[in-house]
């Protein structure tokens, strides 16, 4: 974690110089690249999560990256494999066992999440040698991202985005109205399984940067913000990607200049945007109401 540094670099208001200095470190350049990739994929997947109201499943899939990473460390294999194996496996478990209605599903999802997190704790307890405890896995670190990791991230995200582009239209249809979509012959259930697997891959990828507890923020908040601003699908998707990228990069800059973790800044910037959007909408509604009273209100008076 960055807090181990004795002194953080100072911000000097010379923007060009600051950025040149920051980008003279290869790890910062890699962090910015990885941050952009992760932000784009999380925002696109998260937009569908918000549309499909699958926030609980998304949160569960994202938290199980923690036991994945811890287990991989315990077994001595690369953490990347642990992330992908467990996230996709949890997505499959939820996708296969669900279908018993709303209550059943939420109890199942909660149990899967708690059990896998407990497994992660067991792995940590057995391994004992993890430097700095589990907090780097849980809350993220952007130090030491290698060029190889960036290329792996890029490869995975290209695959995820390609599959999403392929199934985008039917997925949108089945998310908005599953019954009509099923009636029109769209394979709703298969699409839902594929989507959960994509969600697993995306969270496994993002979890390596933001930490497994905070992936969820990068998925849900930009998408929720975009959907409060505009109701048109294409526009809100683009806006979500833009917001996620902005939050990640601003977070990286802030984390570089301060001793506090990246996850805090990314979530805070994203949440500030959300509050701003909600405030603007409320203001808009208020102004609209005072300016033009509806005929019905007039009549009621």
């Amino acid at each position, binding site marked *: 974690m960055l807090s181990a540094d004795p002194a953080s670099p100072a911000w000097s208001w010379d923007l060009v110089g600051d950025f040149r200095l920051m980008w003279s470190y290869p790890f910062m350049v890699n962090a910015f690249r990885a941050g952009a990739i992760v932000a784009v994929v999380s925002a696109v997947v998260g937009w569908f999560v918000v549309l499909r109201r699958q926030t*609980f499943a998304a949160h569960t899939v994202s938290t199980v990256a923690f036991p994945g990473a811890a287990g991989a460390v315990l077994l001595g294999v690369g953490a990347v494999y642990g992330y992908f194996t467990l996230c996709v496996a949890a997505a499959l478990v939820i996708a296969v066992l669900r279908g018993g209605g709303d209550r059943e599903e939420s109890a199942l999802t909660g149990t899967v999440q*708690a059990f896998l997190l407990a497994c992660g704790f067991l792995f940590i307890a057995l391994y004992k040698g993890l430097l700095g405890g589990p907090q780097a896995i849980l809350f993220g670190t952007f130090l030491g991202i290698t060029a190889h990791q960036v290329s792996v991230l890029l490869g995975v995200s290209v695959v995820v985005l390609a599959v999403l582009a392929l199934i985008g239209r039917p997925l949108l249809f089945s998310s908005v109205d599953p019954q009509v979509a099923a009636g029109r012959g769209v394979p709703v259930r298969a699409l839902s399984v594929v989507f959960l697997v994509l969600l697993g891959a995306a969270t496994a990828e993002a979890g390596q940067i933001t930490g497994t507890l905070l992936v969820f923020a990068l998925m849900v908040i930009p998408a929720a913000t975009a959907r409060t601003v505009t109701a048109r699908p294409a526009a809100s998707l683009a806006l979500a990607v833009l917001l996620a990228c902005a939050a990640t990069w601003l977070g990286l800059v802030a984390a570089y200049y301060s001793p506090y973790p990246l996850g805090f800044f990314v979530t805070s910037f994203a949440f500030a945007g959300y509050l701003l959007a909600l405030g603007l909408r409320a203001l808009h509604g208020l102004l609209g109401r005072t300016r033009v009273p509806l005929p019905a209100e007039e009549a009621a008076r």
Partner: protein
Amino acid sequence: MTFLSAGSPLSQPFFQHALLAGTSIAVACGLVGCFLVLRAQVFSADALSHVAFTGAMAALALGYDLRLGLFTGTIAIALLFGTLGREARPDDVVIGSVFSWILGLGAFLITLYTTSRSTTDGSAGVSVLFGSVFGISSAHTATAALLAGGICLVMLLIARPLLFTTVDEAVAAARGVPVRLLGHGFLAVAGAAAAEATQAVGSLLLLGLLAAPAGAAIRLTDRPYRALALSAGLAVLEMWAGLFASYAIPKMPPSFAVMAAATAVYAATFLVRRPTTRPRVGTAPPVGA
């Protein structure tokens, strides 16, 4: 092995404390969890569990008692969730956005705590996240047991109207049941239960204690009161199994053992043939009994 060594741990004070606190917390969580599952509000509990972490870290960073932060944080956020949603049933996306930011705040506070108070133990964050039931002191045990008793009492008092509201909100409101007040009250009680459970199994794992016994109970029976009792009973048994197993195998953390027991019971209910939910003509024959 567990059975053979089961005689000796009861003479250890730390085990007695863990057993007393664990049992009372398990009963409270079983009762609250049952309604959480019935009302499909498990995601709210998930959010509250993460809020518990931030609350505890805030209290530690500011130098207060950890439990003060736990209870204040969870109950305040639970009431906030109540006001955010229609009829005290908050929207999932709003909950997600709020609690993921609060979790980020927790990450900030844990860094603040570990860097500014370097002499205090650095593992406080881990013990809040994953619990340390064997480290609970006798004074803390008494408070935990009393609070858990209070939660159980409140749950039993509001069980009937709450069940009515859960099953049919509109009819309950028409019959004069204070639906909104009950929704808020229940969320506040759920927050208190989350804060309690954090002391036993940790904020990341308490969801298992809330969801797994309740989910199992609801799979086993369709009758709400029976489910309520079964959920509390299962939670207590799972807590005991976890504590004894963890005592027998010291390498296994107690939180993991409790979660493993809870998950095993829940998974076992998938093997039992599910009672039919389809309404049948005439009297339904007992299935799976």
